């Protein structure tokens, strides 16, 4: 694809995205777009660590929930304006990310072990959030309904634009990663930690930075979620469901690619919606279809969808060369 055509396509999609709420009078499709974009954004956050850094987290709910709770608590207990909740959520998510990274990378956890420890961190937070009073324990936290931009409750269309902006920011950020020293070194660590170290790359510091960044981004997503639904409880915030949903997005779309998470989120949400409409109302049957679809997709698209769309750069690495 020529650079010109690429740019034209990008521009057209941008315009389409901006104009979407004006054309789609449907509240449903706007909310559908909001959710899809929110997970594209969260997936991109995961992609920084998992796709570019090669560290698979099964516990991104840890950052999502922490961001959500930080903003919700600050707002309900201390009357903080939710706009300030956004940076607060980033800070909280980043701090938890840093701590989780410090602990796990310091002790050299990789692969399945890293995945499991992040899962466990999220579980610990879920149990704690259920037990301690300031999170509202099992009852959860209610954010007061105060519609309007001032309190970051701008209505579905407003939220759409906010999350669209976040998605653009995350795309830009991923592009930056691909074109910066940080990103180059991060990818080098993903590909081969020993070789990277031999070239003077401090893999540990890099991974901690990546997880802190990813955590901060995810935390912001949590804040947005809480502002949109005005409610958070421990299993919504820290349950394994949210972690899995976040990581599916970039894996399906294409790991370590700029547009992978966006594509993945669109495909997953469209598949889920399609499954409901095709399979009808009987409980469960559409999710059976969705599950099978997932398996079939992997069977025929082992490199994610982005693998189809972009020039095939990743040739098979010989396994026993």
């Amino acid at each position, binding site marked *: 694809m020529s650079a010109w055509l690429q740019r034209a396509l990008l521009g057209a999609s941008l315009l389409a995205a901006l104009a979407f709420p004006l054309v789609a009078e449907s509240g449903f499709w706007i909310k559908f777009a909001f959710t899809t974009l929110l997970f594209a954004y969260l997936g991109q956050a995961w992609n920084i660590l998992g796709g570019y850094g090669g560290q698979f987290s099964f516990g991104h709910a840890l950052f999502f929930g922490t961001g959500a709770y930080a903003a919700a608590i600050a707002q309900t207990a201390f009357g903080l304006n939710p706009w300030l909740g956004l940076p607060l959520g980033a800070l909280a998510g980043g701090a938890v990310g840093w701590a989780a990274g410090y602990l796990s990378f310091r002790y050299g956890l990789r692969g399945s072990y890293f995945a499991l420890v992040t899962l466990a961190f999220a579980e610990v937070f879920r149990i704690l959030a259920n037990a301690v009073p300031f999170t509202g324990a099992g009852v959860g936290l209610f954010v007061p309904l105060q519609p309007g931009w001032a309190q970051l409750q701008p209505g579905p269309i407003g939220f759409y634009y906010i999350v669209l902006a976040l998605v653009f920011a995350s795309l830009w950020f991923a592009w930056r990663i691909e074109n910066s*020293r940080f990103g180059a070194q991060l990818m080098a660590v993903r590909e081969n930690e*020993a070789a990277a170290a031999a070239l003077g790359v401090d893999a540990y510091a890099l991974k901690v930075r990546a997880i802190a960044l990813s955590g901060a981004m995810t935390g912001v997503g949590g804040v947005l979620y809480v502002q949109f639904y005005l409610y958070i409880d421990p299993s919504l915030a820290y349950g394994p469901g949210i972690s899995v949903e976040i990581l599916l997005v970039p894996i399906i779309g294409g790991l370590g690619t700029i547009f992978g998470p966006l594509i993945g989120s669109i495909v997953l949400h469209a598949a889920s919606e399609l499954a409901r409409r095709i399979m009808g109302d009987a409980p469960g049957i559409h999710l059976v279809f969705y599950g099978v679809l997932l398996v079939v997709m992997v069977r025929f698209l082992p490199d994610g969808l982005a693998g189809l769309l972009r020039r095939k750069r990743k040739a098979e690495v010989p396994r026993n060369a």
Partner: protein
Amino acid sequence: MLEARNVTKRFGGLVAVSNASLEVAAGSIVALIGPNGAGKTTLFAAMTGFHKPDSGSVTFDGADITGLQPHEIARRGLVRTFQIVQPFGALSVRENIAVGAHLREPNRAAALARAGEIAIRLGMGNMLDQPAATLTVAGRKRLEVARALATSPKLILLDEVMAGLNPTEIDEIVPIIRAVRDAGTTVLLIEHVMRAVMRLSERVYVLNQGRMIAEGTPQEVAARPEVVEAYLGHGAAQRIASVSA
């Protein structure tokens, strides 16, 4: 410039390197030879922080670097390549080399530009945008060298960069290594290809069964029967002697 003193490294019960010492003078090309499994690569790893020596010390540029992390050692200007090539498979050749260049060059564009220059120097100018995973063995070996060179090292440790290359390719790489030295980087290389060792190095160390068994000029070393035996097997010296006689 680099001095390893009485380095010992054990793996479980196996002593891979035993009390080995070597010295590399600034501006020289030194070779470390020995049969497969002699412990050459382990010694490299012990000097560059990938293995912590069980005893002994390594000094570089006057400072003790024993037990430092690999990236710290690399930052001081001592960089190794790997015998079993370790390309960043999904990245292009240019991007691979740029990872090395980034050690001294934070700017992305500048690092990529430097990667291009180095690739051209190593005769890889036409492969810049190829994913590293698609390179041939020879290409990967070169990439190892290119990446290491991109870090602007003071001393480069080359681990069997000629293994698997054909004679023409070896003839190409020999002057490149010499040029590296002439540009101011000291070279220590592990090599099996004796032809190249003979042509390149000023000093040769021979490691066998983890012990340093000889050192000297290439000619001195090649003349010693224990070296020939270590290489070609027991009795080879006599057999060769009888054949050449």
